């Protein structure tokens, strides 16, 4: 206890950083300095590796040499085992940064007679520690002593002494122990190590394995209490520290292009917000990946780095397929602006994928991440787990101001707005692609289901894949409703011909009117001519009649004269009336 007060700080106890990605965050700084930590778990869960990484990182990053007292593997075996993780034990040993002492216990070669203690073990450990000035110790796994020596009460007393001894020398120790039965370790050594206990677990659910780590206890320190997934890969162990879901992301005002001008126009002309989460959902073959590829292409063209997490196609396939629509993603890969990570969803557990993403983001520092498709992740976890992990991922990406573009395959039977993951609430911008089936063909439609904070178009647009990428077409809305594809083309043609017909009609009407006018005018001329000729004829008749009349009057005079008749005034008047009329 006096050690505690000696090494205590404002935060409680001093921490010893492990250098293991994520673990130091969960434990808020590392393992308790100057105290032993128990790392327990079933066979094959990574206990030794965690211990070795603790030593190696201590030696190489923090200048704290370490001693490994190995009860199971020789120094050569250990060195070979961790070479694949990029640790060069032999080099560290040569530079006196690391010492490995293999403690070999063979019960058949050994006879026990009377009293003994394990002083030789202390001597060996002490010698190794002193020879390189070690600050860290790994005991892997101390429980092998129980298999080799039968005097359990002696062993227990000696173990207690050992841990006290380690504390007295201010050594930060990792002690591994195999888990068995209900207890944390087979021989209950957790009863001697009460400062910090880390439990590792390797679970297989539905043939997919996931490694998990939990800090069971950590005396004198706050620590994350959840089970955290961890990954063993070429860099050793990395734990995914689940960020606290506190929704405090700063909002960026900048809007970035989706790579399709017409789609940008639907987003008020400027595209989507940087650092937001974009979901592109749709049924099979609606062009989700293509749309995402456009986004990536535009981002790379702006000089931003992108990561594509592909669960369905290999990088080469994606590059080839996109080149068919005129997108050359290959050049961005060459320029180190684009990085692919392709894996089958079932190749790892869900968490492993996301730790991988986490790692990649930390290393590659992209501005945009594409996950294609998130629905594939369902193959490696239950719905609630998947949603949970996606939530963490989106949170993480948002925290880093990374724009996340995710595609999701929707069930053709269900409502298009429905994703299997129920993640609408996580999404800022949701672009929906759908097939519109009519007239014996399928066409692609695109619309914006939601776009938080952006005034967006309510239109459904048809989009066409051309040799030079995606092209958005105005959707034809006619008297017969909304038509697409060849129906749209046909409708457009039909309309054009109708218009032509009308124009022709007008022409025809105009010319027929003209003709009629001409005909009537001709008739008028003819009639006029007839009138003239009639008039002429009538004039001739009148002249003839007048001649006749004169002749008659001349004759009557002659007769009167010949008869010598005197005409009375009355006769004169009667004749005059009759003759004049």
């Amino acid at each position: 206890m006096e050690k505690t007060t000696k090494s205590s700080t404002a935060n409680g106890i001093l921490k010893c950083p492990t250098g293991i990605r994520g673990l130091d965050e969960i434990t808020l700084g590392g393992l308790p300095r100057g105290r032993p930590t128990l790392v327990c778990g079933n066979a094959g869960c990574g206990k030794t590796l965690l211990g070795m990484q603790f030593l190696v990182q201590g030696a190489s990053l923090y200048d704290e040499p370490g001693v490994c007292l190995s009860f199971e593997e020789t120094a050569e075996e250990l060195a070979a085992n961790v070479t694949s993780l990029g640790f060069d034990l032999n080099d560290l040993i040569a530079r006196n940064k690391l010492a490995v002492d293999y403690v070999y216990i063979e019960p058949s070669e050994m006879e026990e007679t009377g009293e003994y203690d394990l002083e030789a073990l202390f001597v060996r450990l002490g010698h190794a520690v002193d020879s390189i000035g070690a600050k860290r110790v790994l005991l892997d796994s101390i429980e092998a002593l129980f298999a080799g020596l039968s005097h359990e009460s002696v062993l227990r007393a000696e173990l207690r002494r050992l841990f006290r001894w380690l504390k007295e020398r201010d050594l930060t120790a990792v002690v591994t122990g195999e888990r068995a039965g209900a207890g944390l370790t087979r021989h209950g050594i957790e009863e001697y190590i009460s400062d910090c206990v880390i439990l590792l677990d390797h679970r297989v659910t539905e043939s997919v394995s996931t490694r998990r780590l939990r800090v069971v206890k950590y005396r004198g320190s706050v620590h994350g209490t959840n089970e955290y997934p961890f990954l063993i890969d070429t860099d050793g162990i990395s734990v995914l520290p689940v960020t606290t879901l506190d929704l405090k992301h700063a909002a960026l005002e900048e809007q970035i292009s989706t790579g399709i001008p017409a789609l940008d126009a639907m987003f008020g002309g400027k595209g989507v917000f940087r650092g937001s989460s974009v979901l592109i959902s749709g049924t099979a073959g609606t062009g989700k990946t293509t749309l995402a590829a456009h986004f990536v292409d535009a981002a790379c063209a702006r000089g931003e780095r992108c990561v594509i997490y592909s669960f369905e196609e290999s990088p080469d396939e994606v590059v080839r397929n996109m080149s068919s629509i005129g997108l050359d993603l290959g050049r961005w890969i060459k320029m180190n602006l684009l990085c692919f990570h392709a894996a089958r969803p079932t190749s790892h557990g869900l968490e492993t994928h996301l730790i991988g993403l986490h790692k990649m983001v930390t290393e590659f520092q992209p501005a945009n991440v594409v996950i294609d498709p998130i629905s594939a992740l369902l193959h490696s976890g239950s719905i609630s787990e998947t949603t949970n992990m996606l939530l963490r991922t989106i949170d993480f990406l948002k925290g880093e101001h990374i724009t996340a573009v995710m595609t999701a395959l929707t069930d053709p039977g269900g409502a298009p707005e429905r994703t299997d993951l129920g993640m609408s609430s996580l999404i800022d911008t949701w672009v929906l692609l759908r097939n519109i089936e009519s007239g014996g063909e399928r066409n692609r439609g695109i619309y914006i289901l939601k776009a938080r904070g952006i005034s967006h178009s309510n239109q459904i647009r048809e989009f066409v894949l051309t040799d030079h990428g995606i092209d958005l077409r105005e959707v034809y809305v006619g008297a017969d409703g909304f038509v697409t594809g060849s129906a749209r083309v046909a409708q457009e043609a039909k309309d054009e011909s109708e218009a032509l017909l009308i124009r022709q009609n007008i022409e025809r009407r105009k010319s027929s009117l003209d003709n009629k006018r001409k005909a009537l005018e001709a008739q008028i001329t003819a009639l006029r001519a007839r009138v003239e000729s009639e008039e002429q004829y009538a004039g001739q008749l009148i002249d003839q009649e007048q001649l006749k009349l004169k002749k008659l009057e001349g004759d009557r005079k002659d007769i009167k004269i010949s008869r010598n008749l005197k005409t009375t005034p009355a006769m004169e008047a009667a004749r005059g009336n009759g003759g004049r009329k």
Partner: protein
Amino acid sequence: MSTRLNSSNDAGDGAGNDTWELRLYVAGQTPKSLQAFANLKRICEQHIPGTYDIEIIDLLKNPQLARGDQILAIPTLVRKLPAPVRKIIGDLSNTERVLVGLDLRARGKGA
């Protein structure tokens, strides 16, 4: 600094390769170590007089030697010769078991 205790006064004895080469690892002059040495000497005198060679190694003085013979417990008696190497840990107070451990008595007969 090891202490060598050579019992075979008649140098170049007829036993030839039958010389027993024994090593007793101790850590300081603890009562257990002293008792182990006393017990060992008594047993050797009784059973293999004149043909044994005891080397006492104090690990407090030579800690690096613990590794070579894979010493864990104190005291530990190592029979280097005749082969195979055998180890007996403890203060050697149980004579029967020591005899079994040194192959001076067939296994099973002992306690």
